């Protein structure tokens, strides 16, 4: 009789077949059950804890009872001393502490055994789910498994580091959508601070600063040595010249010591022509020439130092501006998302403003943004406020990049090549006015306008080098709190399924498209979200056949600002190379620019 293999049998078959491959990818042959010796060791320890803790409590109780009889006091008196002296209370307290110590120790012991068990069960589950390539599987298997006689087997408990297993499990079990694997990069957010010249010099030009300091130290030392030699020579000359008063010479030496450049030159002429002998004067002139030379070196170093600090100051200002116009800080300051929609309507996508051919697919559009990080047009959306955005069911929540031009309405910017779009950069204040919807003078004024019109118009900000935080699709929540794909039309379609002709297919098609878009982003490791009409963003955990969407926690602009964003260079390169092969750009020049961007990764 033909029957299909159970999962366990499949395991063993796979294991035998894959015996020669790396152990990280292969399921071990033996069971996931925790080994008997660890289980029995844990049980023994727990019994010992129970026994010894009870023994301690009972032994004290007996000693106390015996003590009561030592002095033949009346039992009422003994009880009175026991209670009023606080002894009863103290004994009860230590008994409680012993019980609590025993309980917490037993729990810790069980945890150790449980961590091992959970690690092994996780390996089984991931293997069954076809997740052998995932980092968690590989990390767990390298901790828990080993190769013995060509076969993969569990390590013994003495070979396993439980802390590492716990860390891996904690990471793997941190809340995230069951739909996806995340490939975006971790980031740290730098606080914008305008540094002083000195601080900027230390932070941005450390090597140059160090070199300059060394040069200055060297020159000072050289000058000091030369001055010292000069003074000795001049003193010797003064002793040998009978006609000169020592006081006058001291003054002269002092002037020599202080002389720089032209002053020193003048002095040299005077020295040679008067008091000193011909030979001494010649030596002196030579020394003073060296002094002049060293003075000039110092001057040149001073110029270099000024140049260095000017450069550091410019860098500090540029860095301050860069940080302030970074998407992360703009989002945080203004509590707003920055979104880039993907247009699917033929008449709008890749029109004359676009430098990409109209033949590109949805997947290509996604890959262009992820791989090339081109300058794009985006809009801001404040959570809780209905806001018009560029049409389209889906888009990206941008998490990184730099804001260039900002406009409170659709500015109709167009790209020049890949990395340039729009006119000159707007000031930080102008960006905040647009993104924070304060362009009517104040946030309060904006709130009045919002109350009057019921929604915000679409604004436009150019984002250079955009990094993607997540991918979202439109969704709407109904009065019962259920979320529906696209909008509440989906609920209507869902309700008419089975009642009116054609709705089953219509809903199925729409749900499939919804899933398909998520699948494109998911395949690229981009986290998935939904965005409601009033621009609230939630994690998307799944899409149901009836058109409802399972959502997780609500996401704030702040969380995006400090969250992961952008793909690794390796992943971008992989996506970019596919685009280059497809030759999707309208001009050869843009194709070359794309090639350079991908080549530089």
């Amino acid at each position, binding site marked *: 009789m033909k029957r299909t293999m159970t999962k366990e049998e499949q395991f063993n078959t796979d294991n035998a077949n894959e015996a020669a491959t790396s152990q990280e990818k292969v399921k071990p042959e033996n069971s996931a059950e925790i080994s008997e010796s660890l289980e029995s060791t844990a049980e023994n320890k727990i019994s010992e804890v129970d026994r010894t803790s009870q023994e*301690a409590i009972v032994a004290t109780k007996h000693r106390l009872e015996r003590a009561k009889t*030592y002095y033949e006091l009346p039992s009422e008196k003994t009880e009175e*001393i026991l209670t009023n002296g606080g*002894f009863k209370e103290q004994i009860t307290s230590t008994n409680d502490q012993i019980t609590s*110590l025993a309980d917490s120790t037993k729990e810790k012991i069980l945890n150790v055994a449980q961590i091992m068990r959970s690690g092994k069960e996780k390996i089984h589950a991931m293997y069954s789910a076809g997740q052998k390539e995932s980092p968690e599987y590989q990390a767990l298997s390298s901790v828990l498994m080993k190769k013995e006689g060509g076969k993969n087997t569990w390590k013994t408990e*003495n070979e396993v580091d439980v802390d590492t297993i716990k860390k891996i499990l904690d990471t793997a079990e941190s809340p995230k959508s069951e739909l996806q694997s995340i490939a975006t990069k971790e980031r740290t957010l730098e606080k914008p601070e305008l540094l002083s010249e000195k601080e900027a010099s230390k932070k941005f030009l450390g090597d140059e600063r160090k070199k300059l300091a060394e040069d200055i130290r060297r020159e000072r030392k050289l000058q000091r040595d030369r001055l010292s030699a000069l003074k000795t020579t001049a003193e010797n000359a003064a002793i040998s010249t009978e006609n000169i008063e020592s006081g006058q010479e001291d003054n002269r030496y002092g002037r020599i010591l202080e002389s720089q450049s032209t002053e020193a030159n003048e002095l040299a002429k005077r020295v040679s022509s008067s008091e000193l002998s011909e030979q001494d004067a010649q030596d002196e002139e030579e020394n003073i020439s060296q002094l002049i030379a060293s003075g000039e070196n110092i001057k040149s170093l001073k110029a270099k130092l000024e140049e260095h600090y000017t450069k550091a100051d410019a860098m500090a200002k540029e860095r301050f501006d860069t940080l302030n116009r970074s998407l992360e800080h703009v989002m945080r300051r203004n509590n707003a998302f920055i979104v880039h929609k993907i247009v699917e309507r033929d008449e709008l996508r890749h029109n004359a403003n676009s430098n990409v051919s109209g033949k590109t697919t949805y997947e290509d559009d996604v890959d262009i943004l992820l791989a090339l990080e081109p300058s794009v047009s985006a809009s801001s959306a404040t959570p809780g406020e209905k806001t018009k955005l560029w049409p389209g069911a889906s888009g990206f929540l941008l998490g990184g990049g730099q804001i260039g031009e900002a406009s409170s309405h659709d500015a109709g910017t167009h790209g020049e090549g890949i990395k340039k779009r729009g006119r000159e950069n707007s000031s930080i204040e102008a960006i905040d006015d647009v993104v924070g919807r304060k362009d009517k003078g104040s946030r309060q004024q904006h709130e009045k306008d919002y109350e009057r019109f019921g929604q915000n118009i679409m604004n436009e900000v150019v984002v250079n080098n955009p990094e993607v935080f997540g991918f979202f699709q439109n969704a709407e929540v109904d009065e019962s709190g259920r979320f529906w794909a696209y909008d509440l039309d989906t609920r209507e379609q869902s309700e008419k399924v089975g009642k009116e002709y054609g709705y089953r297919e219509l809903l199925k098609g729409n749900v499939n498209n919804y899933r398909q878009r998520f699948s494109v982003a998911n395949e690229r490791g981009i986290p998935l979200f939904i965005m409601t009409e009033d621009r609230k963003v939630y994690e998307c955990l799944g899409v149901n056949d009836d058109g409802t969407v399972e959502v997780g926690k609500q996401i704030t602009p702040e969380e995006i600002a400090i969250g992961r964003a952008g793909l690794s260079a390796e992943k971008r390169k992989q996506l970019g190379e596919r685009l280059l092969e497809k030759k999707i750009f309208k001009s050869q020049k843009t194709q070359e620019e794309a090639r350079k961007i991908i080549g530089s990764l």
Partner: protein
Amino acid sequence: MPEKPTKKHSVEELDKLYQEYQKNLLDLRKQQDQIVANFIEALKQESIKELRRKFETNND
């Protein structure tokens, strides 16, 4: 030279947990011993007081 961090293997971890428990239990048992000793001392003092009182009553 800095010590290499030691890995906690499961059985070692169980031993370590048990040893830590024993140490803490010993401390608590010492506390109990002290409480019982203090109680005995209190009984002793009360007994002496009682004897003295009896002695004084007998001599009145």
